[in-house]
């Protein structure tokens, strides 16, 4: 508890110091990470805490963004609010639209709830280009940040601090809410809404309020996005954004408050970095999601908690070899996967297929990859990934053996089994991972 508080404090201090350390483009990337983190956190109020999986949260993100743009003053109009308070517009309109949408969708639960949220979001997505005055048609709207409080808000740094303060405030508010009577009821709503109504609670009102609060916080995130890029168009309502927040949240872990924040930050960073490096980054994102869901359903947060639990249980000296072996195994398997995917992508690309046809029965031309030429027909081009997979599998085995020895040694001393069970799962995880990747 004390450790995590210290870590959070350190992270906040670091976030405030970042502009002094990082380049402008990286500060912009962190800005995006913060917005995605707030979005995922707001989404998780509904998904993880209240147990209602929304497939249409892009709607409230977009509504927040457009509301903020309107408040900003479009096409040289007066700004309704001073720049630092603009996200309030996103919050208010987000709350109201969440109240309306939530009233309908929370009448149903489970899959039906998800389908209603999806339908409402798609409805908005289809209508938005036709509502010229609200969403600016297909071209969208753009605004301008006006100076306020002696700040120009012209530079990325000003925008970054504006985002940071709002994101921290909104996440802090949401955390506070989890400690209130209402916040506890939200958890009960997830656990057993039927029982809740027989205890005298109005489940529909409770669900609607939760939906509205989630939409409100989502609206703030949308507003911050609108402030930082000073524009938006109807594409913001696309399904893509709705699904991305679901993925980010689950990769981070829905059961821990900080999980979605972590997941969104990591995945946004991954998206930024990987999309610069490879065209296949969406495929990698998909692979990561599938693997996390299959072998680590508690997400990154679950992994962190399992690690800390085991570090408490075993001496670090004994645990490190297992971790090191697992890391090596993961690295080798990842390299094998990346090599195979990149190679296949290049060979299957249209350009290359043309070249291959021109070679007319002769040997296919080499492929440029990782600063080397690889011949598609040569043994080494296909032998390398096989070697990587086999070596990765070998390290998985080593890690598992090491872990078993550690477990057996400690089970003599203590009878507790939960964390043993956990790490046991992790090692079988890596094995499955291997199988999975070989299949892929």
């Amino acid at each position, binding site marked *: 508890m004390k450790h995590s508080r210290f870590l959070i404090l350190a992270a906040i201090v670091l976030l405030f110091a970042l502009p002094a350390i990082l380049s402008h483009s990286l500060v912009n990337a962190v800005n995006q990470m913060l917005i995605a983190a707030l979005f995922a956190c707001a989404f998780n109020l509904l998904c993880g805490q209240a147990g209602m999986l929304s497939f249409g949260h892009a709607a409230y993100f977009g509504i927040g963004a457009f509301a903020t743009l309107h408040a900003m003053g479009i096409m040289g109009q007066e700004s309704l609010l001073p720049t630092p308070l603009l996200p309030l517009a996103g919050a208010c309109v987000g709350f109201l639209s969440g109240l309306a949408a939530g009233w309908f969708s929370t009448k149903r639960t489970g899959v039906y709830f998800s389908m209603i949220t999806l339908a409402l979001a798609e409805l908005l997505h289809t209508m938005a280009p036709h509502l010229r005055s609200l969403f600016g048609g297909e071209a969208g709207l753009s605004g301008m940040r006006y100076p306020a409080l002696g700040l120009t808000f012209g530079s990325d740094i000003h925008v970054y601090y504006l985002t940071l303060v709002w994101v921290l405030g909104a996440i802090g508010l949401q955390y506070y*809410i989890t*400690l*209130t*009577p*209402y*916040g*506890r*009821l939200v*958890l*009960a709503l*997830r*656990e*057993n809404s*039927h*029982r*809740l*109504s*027989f*205890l*005298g*609670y*109005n*489940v529909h*009102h*409770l669900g609607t*309020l939760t939906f509205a609060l989630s939409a409100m916080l989502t609206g703030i995130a949308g507003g911050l996005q609108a402030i930082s890029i000073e524009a938006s168009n109807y594409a913001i309502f696309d399904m893509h954004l709705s699904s991305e927040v679901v993925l980010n949240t689950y990769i981070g872990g829905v059961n821990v408050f900080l999980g979605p924040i972590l997941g969104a930050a990591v995945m946004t960073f991954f998206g930024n970095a990987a999309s610069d490096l490879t065209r296949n980054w969406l495929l990698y994102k998909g692979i990561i999601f599938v693997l996390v869901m299959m072998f680590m359903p508690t997400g990154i947060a679950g992994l962190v908690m399992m690690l800390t639990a085991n570090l408490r249980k075993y001496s670090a000296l004994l645990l490190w070899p297992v971790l090191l072996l697992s890391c090596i195994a993961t690295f080798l398997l990842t390299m094998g996967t990346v090599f195979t995917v990149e190679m296949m992508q290049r060979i299957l690309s249209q350009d290359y297929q043309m070249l291959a046809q021109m070679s007319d029965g002769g040997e296919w031309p080499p492929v440029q990859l990782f600063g080397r030429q690889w011949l598609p027909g040569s043994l080494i081009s296909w032998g390398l990934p096989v070697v990587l997979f086999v070596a990765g599998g070998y390290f998985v085995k080593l890690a598992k053996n090491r872990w078993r020895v550690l477990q057996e040694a400690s089970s003599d001393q203590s009878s507790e089994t939960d964390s043993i069970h956990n790490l046991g799962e992790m090692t079988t995880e890596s094995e499955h991972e291997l199988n999975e990747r070989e299949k892929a």
Partner: protein
Amino acid sequence: MTAPILSMDAVHKSFGDAHIIRGVDIELLAGERRAVIGPNGAGKSTLFHLISGQLKPDKGQIILNDQEIQGLPPQRINHLGLARSFQITNIFPGLTVFENVRIAVSQRHGLQYSLWRLIDRIHNVSEQTDSIMEKVRLSANRDTLAGELSYSEQRALEIGMTLASDPRVILLDEPMAGMSHEETDYMVALIREVTQGRSLLIVEHDMDVVFSLSDRISVLVYGELIATGTPDEIRNDSRVQEAYLGEEVSA
């Protein structure tokens, strides 16, 4: 004689072609402990669902405290002073025992929309939660997840949650199912104690419990009440013996 606190008047309920409740009249007096017995499939649970708002009757009136409640949503009926437990344990499995009871207690403090106060600082809620946990002997399991309790502990929690809203009428649906003798004895004593000054309607298969606990017993067979009376009257009623007890013996 005291006035009835809960009464049903010619209540009918069908599911498709199946006519489950066929014109039930029942009057529960204030302060009375009443058991409803009957063979499997007689409609006892359906009766409870109708009273507590889970189901709507097709015909007839249900009156709680001079107010018609048929077809009202469960939370409204709860506000009017009626709480129930469930035959199949119905708790919040992923939350701690303390949290389960506290959620049940919070309701009568009107805290559903309280977003500004820290719940840990609301002391009377915590105190009442503790006292209910003590009553149902779960204080030692305060921080255990409800889903990890043993079966009989979950039953006790279920009853604790039912009591938490301080109801005037309590409906217990087979509270002793699956309990050992010792647990049953404790539960009977507990129910007797906590229903002091309240009205109780209980469905139970353990006849020892039924005959020792209740002031009066109603016998429900195929959706109709065939008899109501004191335990002695019921024991000696020939129709009851034929329709219910006789069946049990021959079975």
